[in-house]
């Protein structure tokens, strides 16, 4: 039986290798993303000149599930109706709101009850009524019994008239060109079945008429750290996965899908809080099983803006829900794990998500814990402990700074020099406390799932972190 010192050594080797693998994996993704980004930036200004339409573009249905959004729904819908695209419709699904969401919509858009021949292709909670706007021919509202976001989206898909649908959150702020940009992958590659849009954080930004005017940084440090986090994990990480056609997540805040493909896969599942990720993973599974050529891709252009939580409790609830959604999505599609014919999705992306995203918080916390315990027990000297932490933290910092580098090479949306310095500082500081806190939240989410506590959506507090 090896002695305690040897066991600690093995443990340290294991955790060091773990940190190297997870951060090395992300660095690889950032590396892949850099090529995709270079291609994209090189052609985006020219591929659709002139900016006119030929009526050959595929029409799009924009689905907006709404639950208790009375304060903001009218503004959100108005800004969606201003999207610059040749043909699109907006379908708002009022998911049994208990506030004045429906009343606000009825009043603002001259809605009248409409004898819709509603087609049930995906089972949902009952639809009470369908309304059509007398002011905007391309706006309809579905009023239904509460069933959750996935159920609302399925009801929207049932009512969608067009071959592509775009799911947006009620609080998402899109740019006028967002649809035009997001549809491009469908035009250039007919195998495309889904495309995710980059979601950026609007905290601290200037907004007018529902459109972002000027990107600014928030004063709230939590929001600032999340901006760096979004660049690292939700932007360039996803672009890297898209380069491998192994993207497992498209944000529910903004994603474009081929309707018939989603209906064929069964629509959104209502028994998970991670319905957005679960759908994408299922698309991979069903399309690979059917041996159909397909692409699921990602658009790096900053086309969708949303508000990040600035309170610790709200952030905790969000991350706990995300972690649970992640686990549910993976478990519900576990047949993808190293399955036959699953390619990079099943043999690289899926295992990566299982070991480094889903169970990652467990290994990270245990790794830190074992190191500290070993030092406390005298099995590890201070110098060794410091070195281990410096590698673990340093790798995370390198990843954040690399993402900032890609941002600077591409969109550099934060134009002021001091904003750049603030982001650089945040990319260092976030590794001393913030990331570890997020890891703890995620671990909590993982533990709740393991012991079988039911997941809930919880409530996102809108603090008006965006300046109108």
């Amino acid at each position: 039986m090896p002695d305690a010192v040897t066991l600690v050594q093995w443990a340290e080797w294991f955790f060091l290798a773990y940190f190297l693998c997870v951060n090395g994996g992300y660095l690889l993704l950032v590396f892949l993303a850099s090529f995709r980004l270079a291609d994209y930036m090189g052609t985006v200004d020219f591929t659709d000149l002139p900016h006119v339409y030929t009526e050959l573009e595929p029409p799009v249905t924009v689905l907006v599930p709404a639950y208790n959004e009375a304060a903001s729904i009218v503004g959100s819908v108005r800004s969606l109706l201003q999207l610059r695209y040749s043909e699109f419709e907006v379908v708002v699904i009022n998911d049994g709101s208990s506030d004045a969401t429906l009343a606000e919509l009825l009043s603002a858009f001259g809605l009248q009850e409409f004898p819709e021949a509603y087609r049930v292709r995906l089972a949902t909670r009952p639809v009470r009524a369908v309304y059509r706007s007398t002011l905007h021919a391309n706006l309809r509202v579905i009023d239904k019994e509460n069933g959750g976001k996935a159920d609302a989206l399925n009801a929207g898909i049932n009512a969608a008239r067009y071959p592509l649908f775009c799911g947006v959150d009620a609080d998402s702020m899109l740019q006028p060109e967002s649809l035009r940009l997001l549809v491009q992958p469908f035009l250039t590659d007919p195998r495309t079945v889904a495309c995710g849009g980059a979601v950026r954080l609007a905290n601290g930004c200037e907004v007018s008429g529902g459109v972002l005017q000027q990107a600014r940084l928030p004063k709230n440090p939590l929001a600032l750290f999340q901006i760096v986090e979004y660049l690292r994990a939700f932007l360039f990480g996803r672009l890297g996965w898209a380069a491998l056609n192994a993207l497992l997540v498209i944000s529910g805040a903004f994603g474009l899908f081929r309707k018939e493909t989603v209906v064929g896969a069964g629509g959104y599942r209502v028994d998970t809080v991670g319905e957005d990720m679960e759908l994408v993973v299922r698309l991979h599974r069903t399309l690979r099983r059917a041996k159909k050529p397909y692409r699921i891709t990602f658009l790096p252009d900053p086309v969708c803006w949303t508000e990040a939580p600035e309170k610790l409790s709200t952030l905790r609830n969000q991350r706990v829900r995300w972690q649970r959604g992640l686990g549910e999505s993976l478990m519900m599609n576990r047949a993808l794990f190293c399955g036959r014919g699953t390619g990079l999705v099943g043999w690289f992306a899926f295992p990566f998500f299982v070991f480094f995203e889903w169970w990652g918080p467990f290994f990270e916390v245990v790794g830190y814990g074992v190191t500290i315990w070993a030092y406390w027990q005298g099995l590890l000297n201070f110098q060794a402990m410091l070195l281990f932490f410096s590698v673990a933290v340093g790798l995370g910092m390198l990843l954040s700074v690399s993402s900032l580098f890609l941002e600077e090479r591409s969109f550099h949306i934060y134009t002021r020099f001091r904003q750049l310095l603030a982001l650089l500082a945040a990319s260092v500081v976030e590794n001393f406390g913030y990331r570890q806190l997020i890891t703890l939240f995620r671990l909590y989410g993982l533990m709740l799932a393991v012991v079988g506590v039911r997941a809930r959506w919880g409530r996102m507090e809108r603090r008006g972190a965006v300046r109108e």
Partner: protein
Amino acid sequence: MGFGTVSDGFLTWVYFTSLAIGAAILFMMARILVLRVYLLLSQRRTARFEAFWRPLLAELAIVPIPCKGMALPRLHRRDYRRFIGLWLAMQESLADEAHERLNHVARRLGAHRIAQRSLQRKSVPQRLAALIFLGHLKDRASWLTLAAMLHDASPVISVVAARSLMQTNPAKAAPLVFAELLRREDWPVERLGLVFRHTLSPELANLHLTPLLDDCDDETAIRLLPYVRYLHHEARDALLFALLSRSRSDRLTSRVLRQVENSGCLEQVRRYTAYPRWHVRMQAVAALGRIGTREEDLAILTERLGDEQWWVRYRAAQALVRLLGQSPNELRALQERHADPYARQMLAQVMREEALSHA
């Protein structure tokens, strides 16, 4: 406390790894700061450049004075990309005479020579900018290079090359572009639509597109069909009739039906309203709404109103409203008479849509 000899080696390895990571972080940060400084300097230069050149180009574009004797400021080579960006933005929003004046200015400044050299560069953005620039310029001297770039492996470069060729000499370019269109499968229809929008006249389309469609298989016909819209009506109708008659592919049939607007195809369209594949029935029913007659097609559309497929019912209802739109009482009577509740519901929806569109 501490490790033995093996651990010292281990710690050394960890020490150098952390040093390498630290060095990489500092290097990245330095690069970010350098990029930002470079960006700021570049933005200032661009702002100064545009403050001088934008009003000048705007005036040269709209003022109908001869430019021949007029001395133009010198364009530095380092400002070429800025000039191209500004010039292209203005060109894309101007037309006719303003186009020609800007072209003249660009030639006087020698920008076309720099663009011609840029076509040979490896950088994709530079090649694209040069392609678009030379297309607006209708630069015949670059013809051979543009024609070669038509076959580029990148669909982005080849489509933009196609556009430039069509702008330069549509008659000469059309056969090349159509040949390339047939050869490759990665050209988006929407992008080609933009290419042909202002450059493919009905006469040219008739000359090059019609022979291709007269003698091709169904898959090729499907790919060429979107461009039939550029033909004269008579030629288009004759072609659609011929394609409908000889089509063996359901996909081609439904796409042709979608474009039918002439009653010459009426008998064929009527037959397709009972076709086994629903999307063919749907397009046939929609076509009947455009070219059908009240007297003969009311019964067909009423029957299709009770089709098992939602989209067929929807198009049948729209076709009925189109045919009977002037007789709302007759529509209501038809709705009440129909035995199928889904049919009644669909007609109610479409009648309401029609009422709202006229409100």
